């Protein structure tokens, strides 16, 4: 019990450390928020007029849940880079040579990233409300939707931690994440409905973890775009939106922890 309390205290110190980084580099934060806001504006206003929402409805109402999930996905870059920076420098060695709980570094990273994601969600929700998006089915379901988005972010955090520990070079992480994340956002229901894609691509898009979360939160927010093809993946989006983050975390958290332990080799 005492050990757990000490580990929690160490984890919290590491969380605060990571949050301080954010406060001390405001320019990074601005850049970080610029991308999703740009997506809202470019897709919402420039391409939006040419996009059709399956079952009808406002395109920006359709788009915002997609941007929420996409922002979580791109968070993988921030996580991976931060972990690689840590692992590549001596500071992790210092932590590991101190009487600090071994879990603290990873706990601190994932907690800080979750807090950061909550902050991003707040900014995006405000941004969404400004461009005409809103939730239609009550605050309870809206909060549940936000929880699903954050669950996705937890899974993505562990993928990012694993990536950072394996690559151990901040610049390389940056160049890996985009080609990894871009097809995932393109072949999904973020910008357009999978039923408008060629058959096999549509199926791929429907099974995309990102799509599961987006479909589930569209339903919870009461946003348009849920005509669906009646396929299993779209009918069970809510289940998949919970299952995918659980499965991804179950796979990548142990991988990340193992890579972290391998630093002692």
């Amino acid at each position, binding site marked *: 019990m005492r050990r757990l309390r000490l580990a929690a205290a*160490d984890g919290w*110190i590491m969380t605060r450390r990571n949050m301080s*980084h954010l406060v*001390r580099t405001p320019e990074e934060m601005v850049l970080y928020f610029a991308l999703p806001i740009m997506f809202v504006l470019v897709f919402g206003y420039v391409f939006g007029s040419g996009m059709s929402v399956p079952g009808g409805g406002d395109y920006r109402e359709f788009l915002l849940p997609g941007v929420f999930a996409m922002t979580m996905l791109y968070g993988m870059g921030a996580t991976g880079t931060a972990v690689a920076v840590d692992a590549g420098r*001596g500071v992790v*060695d210092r932590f590991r*040579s*101190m009487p600090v709980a071994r879990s603290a570094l990873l706990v601190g990273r994932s907690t800080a990233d979750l807090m950061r994601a909550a902050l991003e969600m707040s900014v995006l929700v405000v941004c969404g409300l400004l461009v005409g998006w809103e939730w239609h089915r009550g605050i309870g379901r809206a909060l549940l939707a936000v929880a699903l988005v954050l669950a996705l972010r937890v899974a993505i955090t562990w993928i990012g931690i694993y990536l950072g520990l394996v690559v151990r070079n901040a610049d390389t992480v940056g160049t890996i994440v985009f080609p990894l994340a871009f097809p995932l956002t393109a072949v999904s229901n973020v910008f357009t409905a999978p039923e408008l894609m060629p058959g096999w691509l549509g199926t791929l898009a429907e099974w995309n973890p990102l799509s599961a979360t987006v479909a589930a939160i569209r339903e919870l927010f009461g946003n348009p775009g849920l005509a669906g093809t009646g396929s299993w993946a779209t009918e069970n989006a809510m289940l998949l939106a919970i299952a995918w983050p659980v499965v991804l975390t179950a796979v990548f958290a142990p991988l990340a922890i193992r890579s972290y332990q391998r630093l002692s080799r």
Partner: protein
Amino acid sequence: MADHAIVAEGLLKRYGDKKALNGFDLAVRTGTVHGVLGPNGAGKTTAVRALCTLLRFDAGRAEICGIDVAGQPARVRERIGLTGQYAAVDEQLSGRQNLVMFGRLLKLRPAAAKRRADELLAQFGLTEAAGRNAGQYSGGMRRRLDLAASMVIVPQVLFLDEPTTGLDPRSRNQVWDAVRSLVAEGTTVLLTTQYLEEADQLAGRISVVDTGRVVAEGTADELKAKIGGDRVEVVVRHADELAAVADIVGRVCHSVPQTDRDVRRVGTQVADRVAALTGVVRALHEAGIAVEDIGTRRPTLDEAFLQLTGHRANEEATA
């Protein structure tokens, strides 16, 4: 308290076919500074990382303050400090934030952690830079901050892995002073270095390491003595006198002296330096050769190192 603060017996660490540590032995008496001297790739850093619980070793036994490193790493970590070649501080935090964070991780209360951080910043001349990001510090400042971070709680054993590599002389002296003040408080220090001067300055005893094992151990004087005694050296005025002087020195000292034409110097090892010196002076006087300089000197640690390992300290070890 244990007699020896650091003990290592037969440490072995393999990376594939290469043995980074190959039967590494060490015994450091509590309260002393022990130097580990060796070229790049000799295994110094690997040894430090193994002793600091950062690296699992494949065989052998290590104890810090009588505690088994492999068996109870958490207890070892409560007693050690580590300052490596690369400044192990968070570059995205200020110097003060770094020290406060390390204090908090060492279970100091917030107020105590802040007080200790300010003390250390003052001690290392970093008070003015306290609020700046450590990433913006110069190399010397960062190293000082790094050393300060190892001293938030005075450790029983401090590991310094090449603490002054790449530092200017002024920063180097500051690091040395800090180490001396820690030792005065009773800390045992293990210092790795490529600089013979540093080992000579700080360390009571020195282990010379090459290809993952200790090839010689002793005080600086003992190591120098180990490679044979003192030298007699004569510097002549004109290079054309070198042959004649070498002949005289060789005859008096019963040896084959080395001649260095560039500095017009003849030198040789001798058993009894006073007898050799007087003999050479008398013989030169009889031969009517007036010389520029004559004297005896002890061999440098650099020469000792060359003799013990077959290569100079600043050369890469051949793997």
